[in-house]
Every structure is written in structure tokens, then in C-alpha cells.
């Protein structure tokens, strides 16, 4: 069958619609299965998210997975703060008059490589450092690994946001006699919606990543006891639970993934809302 031009146009139009529909359908399926399966376990016993695990938790599902919830918060929270400070500084350096254009380009190339580096490599790297300094896997090294993982992601978002800030802001501040530092601060303010959204996205990526903390935080099944004691996070816990032979432990994996997906969806929502809220700082942005 030979298609004429208009039939072909219709055909590809429908193909494009079909592809988009397929992607949306898969997304709905994944979220629905997680919320339905996890929600069912979670609703019948919401206390498992705040109950410390029993001594035989991974074998017999005694207690709950509060240790992983706490571990996630204690690892990803500080990591996000450290990483955000570094990422914003690097992005300012790249986008302002502190560096030459040529050096910026070189740094950008390395950042792109870091951005594409598989998370497991960061895990292996931090583990190598742990072995080299003779320490044990712990909450602290989990923070280090997640911070390294988030750094290129956040730098990329921040860099894009700063690049999108209008040049007139920079020119106007220099025209008023500001120093480079003061100009940089004003530019950050103008780009704030994008930067905040980027940091929240980095937080969401960090809280969902398992490969970096798998070897570095210690895969502990007890409550985190201190910064240099082993800990675990929700994704690592789900990974371990999903491999269990005990059906009840596996059902806890669905409850844990329910908690995780609600947290991630909440963070994305927060990033959109915050971006809208801070838009009033942007020149020409919404005035709310």
C-alpha cells in the first residue's frame, strides 16, 4: 500500500500521540501499582513506618522500618545542604566574571562527565576511601556519597537557572558600581526560582538513589546510633526487602515504597510551588 502525503501525515500524527499515551499509561501504571499495593499494607498498619525494627526484622518482619525513614532523613538532608552550597558556588563561578570563558568550558566538560557517571561508581569510590582510611561504613560516609552524587545534578540546574537570568540585571548592578560579589548575589536572587527548584530536584534524586549508599552507609538493620555508626536508607531497604523469601517482609517493601513515592511526589510538587512562589523575585516574573 502506498500512502499519499496526507495519509502519512495522519499516520505519524497518530503514532506520536500513541507514543505519548503509552508513556503516560506506563507512568500511571507504576504509580498506581505502588500506591495500591503499598497503600493497602500501609493503611492496615501505618505504625510500621514509625516502629523501630525488631532484632530479626529482615527474616520475620518484626517491628517496622523507622530506621530506614530516619536514615534517609539524616543522610539525604545534610548531603543536600552541603551539596547545594557547593553547587551554587560552582555555578556562580561558571556564570559570572570570576572565571575566564575558556576555563568555564573546561569545568563544564568535567561536570558533564560527572553528571553522566553511574551512581554505583560514586559508591565504589567512597568505599575505596573508607577502606583506605580504615574506617567502617557509616551514616557519615553515606552523606559524603549522596553529596557527591547530588553535586553535578544541582550544579547543572543552578547553572541553567543563572544562564537564563537576564543580562540586564548584571549590567544594571555593575552600572551602579557594585562589586562582582554583589552582582553575583543579585543574579542569584533573579534566578532564585530555578535554583530552588533545582535543589529540590536534587533532593528528590538523592532520596531515591540506592546504588551510592548501598556500600557506604552500611545496610544496617538497626536504628541509626550516631554519625559514625552504620545506617540505611529507604531505597536500600526496599532493595533488600524485595529479595526476601518471607512474604511479609516483601509486603513491607511495598509499604516502604509507598512512603518513598509519596515523599518524592511531594517534593516535586513542593519544587513546582516554590518555583512559582519565588517567581516574584525574578525580573518580569509573576507578582504574587
Amino acid at each position, binding site marked *: 500500500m502506498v500512502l499519499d502525503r496526507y495519509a502519512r501525515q495522519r499516520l505519524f500524527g497518530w503514532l506520536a*500521540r500513541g507514543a505519548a499515551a503509552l508513556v503516560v499509561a506506563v507512568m500511571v501504571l507504576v504509580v498506581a501499582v505502588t500506591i495500591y499495593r503499598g497503600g493497602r499494607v500501609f493503611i492496615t498498619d501505618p505504625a510500621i513506618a514509625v516502629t523501630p525494627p525488631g532484632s530479626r526484622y529482615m527474616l520475620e518482619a518484626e517491628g517496622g522500618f523507622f530506621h530506614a525513614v530516619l536514615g534517609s532523613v539524616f543522610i539525604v538532608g545534610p548531603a543536600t545542604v552541603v551539596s547545594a552550597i557547593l553547587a551554587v*558556588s560552582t555555578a556562580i563561578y561558571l556564570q559570572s566574571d570570576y572565571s575566564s570563558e575558556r576555563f568555564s568550558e573546561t569545568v563544564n566538560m568535567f561536570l558533564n562527565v560527572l553528571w553522566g557517571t553511574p551512581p554505583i561508581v560514586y559508591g565504589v569510590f567512597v568505599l575505596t576511601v573508607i577502606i583506605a582510611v580504615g574506617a567502617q561504613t557509616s551514616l557519615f560516609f553515606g552523606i559524603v556519597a549522596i553529596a557527591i552524587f547530588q553535586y553535578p545534578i544541582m550544579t547543572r540546574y543552578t547553572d541553567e537557572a543563572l544562564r537564563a537570568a537576564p543580562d540586564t540585571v548584571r549590567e544594571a548592578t555593575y552600572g551602579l558600581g557594585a562589586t562582582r560579589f554583589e552582582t553575583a548575589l543579585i543574579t542569584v536572587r533573579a534566578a532564585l526560582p530555578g535554583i530552588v527548584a533545582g535543589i529540590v530536584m536534587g533532593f528528590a534524586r538523592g532520596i531515591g538513589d540506592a546504588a551510592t549508599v548501598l556500600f557506604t552507609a552500611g545496610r544496617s538493620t538497626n536504628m541509626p546510633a550516631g554519625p559514625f555508626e552504620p545506617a540505611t536508607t529507604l531505597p536500600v531497604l526496599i532493595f533488600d526487602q524485595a529479595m526476601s523469601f518471607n512474604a511479609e517482609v516483601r509486603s513491607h517493601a511495598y509499604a516502604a515504597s509507598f512512603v518513598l513515592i509519596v515523599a518524592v511526589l511531594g517534593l516535586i510538587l513542593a519544587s513546582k510551588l516554590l518555583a512559582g512562589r519565588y517567581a516574584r523575585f525574578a525580573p518580569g516574573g509573576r507578582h504574587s
Partner: protein
Amino acid sequence: MTGSTETESAADGSSRLGRRLLAERLSGYWFGGAGYFAVALFALIVLTLLYQSLPLLAEYSVVQALTSSNWDPAHNEFGFLPAIVGTVYVTLLSMAMGTPIAILAAIYIAEYAEGRTKTIVSSFIDVLAAIPSVIFGLVALLVVVPFVGDYLAPAVGSDATGLGIFTVSLVMAIVVTPFMISLAVESLEALPDELRESSLGVGATKWETIRSVLLRAAGPGIFSAVLLGFGRVFGATIVPAMLIGGQTQLPESPLATGQTLPTLIVNDFGELMSLPLTQSALIFVGLLLVVVVWLFNFGAMVVRRRLRRRWQY
């Protein structure tokens, strides 16, 4: 006037101008340090991994390690070929499944969808890109594994259980598609409207405009979106570790179980602490991942530059 000496004496922080200049100078050091941090981090990672894989490379040559298919850490046999073949299988299969869908969906979002539909569909795809991969693995254990094991494998006359290379590829295609879509949409939307207008103006249909004008003009961007997706699948860890079955042998068919380079690290982690040579071998896998990703990024940069010159508008 003695402007220069005034500035110098003011820089000690005693006056208002002095404080401003001091902040200026200190911030210069801080931001400069942050700029070098990115380079230093990369160098530190590569050098550490290289240094730690030296014990393995002292015993075996690189060629020998990469082409031997015998992986038996207990007897000091380190052949990476099964894991390499598994990785190549997974990467190629998921890109073959994911790329056409991603490009078509990106065309839909950038060229067909309008107004509210567009906002909704693109925020759905943003959400899909942010879902932790461990959740994809878990849902796949519930949905994809029984599907492949009970329907697909018998249909092609295989007795596979459902865990294996094909399952991993399918799930990884789902994981990377939204990521490729958002990058491809970005480069399609960056094109000026004059391109669309002049192509439609000379009588091309919408599809002809997309195929011969827009996909070409956005070609370098779409190409790098695909390569970045490639890198994602290549280094994926959690989904393969959950679904591949974890057997270090050369896979016989796409439905067979196998191993990828990252899952090799995850599955043999238990032995890592005790045997120094195994430790070195697994760190070498990490180095291999970095080097391949680096080559890919570099290659993408070169090809992008060349394509941009050829497909310029």
C-alpha cells in the same frame, strides 16, 4: 589623586568600601575553589579507582581480563566478558525499545500538544523521570516478571523464569524514556518558529516539516539526548540487580539470566572485603564504567559539533 593607595589601605576592612572589597576578594577565593572542586573531584575519583585496580592489572593484562569468560573470584579467575556481553545486550535492547518511543513522544509534546494537555503530559513525564529506580524494580517484579515468565517465554518456546536480560531491558527502557523525552523536547522547542512557518509555507505537510526540517535542526540535541540515555542504561545498578538473575555466564538468549558490570559489583560485594584481588577487580569494574562514560561524553561532544555544522539552518 591617590586612588590606588586609597583602595589598598581601604582593603583592610576598616571602612565601608574596605569591607566590600574584602568580601569581594574572599568570595573570589571561595568561588574559585568551588570551580576547581569539580575538576578535582573528577581527578580524585579516576586516580583513586586507577590506583586501587593496579593489583589486578599487575596479575592480568587488560586484554586478558576483558576477553576471558571465566569469572570465579574464589579461584582468582577474573574474566569480565560475561558481564560485558550482558551490559551490551541490556543497553542495546533497551535503547532499541526506548528511543523510537521517546522521539515520537517528544515530537508529540513539542509539536502537537497544546495548552493544558501539554502541561499535563509534560509534568507526568517529569514525575516519571523522578521516580526512584528501586520502585520500578519492585513494580516490575510484580508485573513484568510474571508477564515475561508466564506468557512471553512460553510463546517463544523458552523455559525462562522471567528474571533475565529481556526483563531488565524492558524496565530500563521505561526508566530512561522520560529522561530522553525531556532532553529531546528541550531541543525541539529551542528551534525558531520561522523554520516551521517557512516549511509549511512552501507546502510541506506537518509530518514532512517535522521529518526533514525539525528533526534535522534539532538533530544534534536529540542525538545527545539518546547518548545520555545510553549512559544511564549502561550504568544502571538497582534495576538490573533486582531483575537480571545474577549468573555470571555468557547469556545464550535475550531471555536468559546474566550479569551486567554494575550488578557484578553488587552481587560480589560480600566477598569484597576478604580478598584483596577481588576487591581490586571490582574497583576495576568501577574504573571501566567511568572510562566508558567519559569516552561516550567526549564522542558525543565531537559528533554533536560535527552534526551541528552539517545540519545547520
